[in-house]
Each structure stands twice: as C-alpha cells, then as structure tokens.
C-alpha cells in the first residue's frame, strides 16, 4: 500500500514570496490533515478535510494561508506572502476517519529567508 506522498521535500524562499505544497493521501482515506511543525515542537493542525469539505481550519492563518482538496483526493497548501516565522516542516496526514490512526507523509521542510 502506498503511503502519503508530499512534494517538494525542501523549499527555500525569501519573505513575501509565495509557495505551494502538494499532498496525495493514502487511497480511500476520506480525512486529510495539514500540520505545521516548528522545530522543537509537536505538530499543530492547520486544516482538516473530510472528503473535499473543510472540517476544521480554526488555526489556519487565513490572511496568508489557503488550502484546497480537489475532488476529495489530492490537496494543496499555499502560503502567500510568506513570513520568516513560517519556517517549519509542513506535514500532511490522512486517515479513514477522525478517530482512526493518522498516517503521515515525509513532510516539506520550508525555510523562509
């Protein structure tokens, strides 16, 4: 069974630039999550999708972050414009449901200069 795929693995940008991350969840997983993991901390949920609908985006900085999940499968997370404090690892995860085990992708390490 293929795992959660993410790209790119690394990205370096300058502040005020834009960046996009892509995630392909495990086939059949209805629930998809984007987390932000700052160095030395646990992952923090940014947004949760159930199929192609948003369940929770309460911690997503909506003035600069956006996310979509087209057709309930792949998802993209965008930051525009990026700030220095956005430097982090962005993790995508998927699960069969909210209470089921989450399977994580390898993450995208973002450095904003």
């Amino acid at each position: 069974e293929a795992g959660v795929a993410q790209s790119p693995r690394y990205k370096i940008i300058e502040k005020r630039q834009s960046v996009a991350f892509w995630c392909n969840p495990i086939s059949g997983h209805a629930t998809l999550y984007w987390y932000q993991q700052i160095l030395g901390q646990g992952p923090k949920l940014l947004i949760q999708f159930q199929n192609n609908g948003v369940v929770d985006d309460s911690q997503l900085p909506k003035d600069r972050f956006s996310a979509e999940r087209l057709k309930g499968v792949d998802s993209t997370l965008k930051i525009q414009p990026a700030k220095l404090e956005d430097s982090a690892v962005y993790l995508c995860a998927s699960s069969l449901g909210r209470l089921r085990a989450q399977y994580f992708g390898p993450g995208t390490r973002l450095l904003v200069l």
Partner: protein
Amino acid sequence: AQTVTQSQPEMSVQEAETVTLSCTYDTSESNYYLFWYKQPPSRQMILVIRQEAYKQQNATENRFSVNFQKAAKSFSLKISDSQLGDTAMYFCAFIALSGNTPLVFGKGTRLSVIA
C-alpha cells in the same frame, strides 16, 4: 481545551535496557483516545500505540507498552529491550471522541539509544 504535557525534553537509554517516557494530559472529557507517535530523524511520523480511555487494560504492541492511569491523567510509554532503531522523537497525543476537536500533540521527547 485539551493540553498534553511531556516533561522530559530528552532522554537516553543503553541498548537492550528499558526506558519510560512520561505524558500527562488535561481534559474534562471522559471518552477519548491517546496515542504515542514516533518520528525518527529525517523520517516520517508513525503510530506506535493507541489506548482507548474506556479500556482498563493497558495497550501493548511488541516491545512497546503503556501505563494508562485515567484518574491521574497519565499515559506513559515503556520501551523494553531498547534498540538503536528506537532513536527518535516521541510524541504523545490526545483526541476527544465528542465534537470535531483535533488531535493534540505534546512537544515531544527526544530519545537516544546508545550502543
């Protein structure tokens, strides 16, 4: 709001020895799940073990077991016969069954297994 606290930022253990990682949580919920996730260096996070709060029996998964103390809101992870491959960040996480609250992670404990 639920919070998860891991009071040990770093720990080390000799290969083949046993180590226990601590986790406490704060919640007013009575029904919830608890998890331990492992994040090896430069590798993806994987689930180690899960505990349902309504179960009194502690979960066990091969060399990994938990000590779940519901009244004390404590959920420690014991790793027996530690192996070099156990070197990783370990995160404790909590999710309430009610509502749509997300999985909440602690800050993690960095475990180093020494040969």
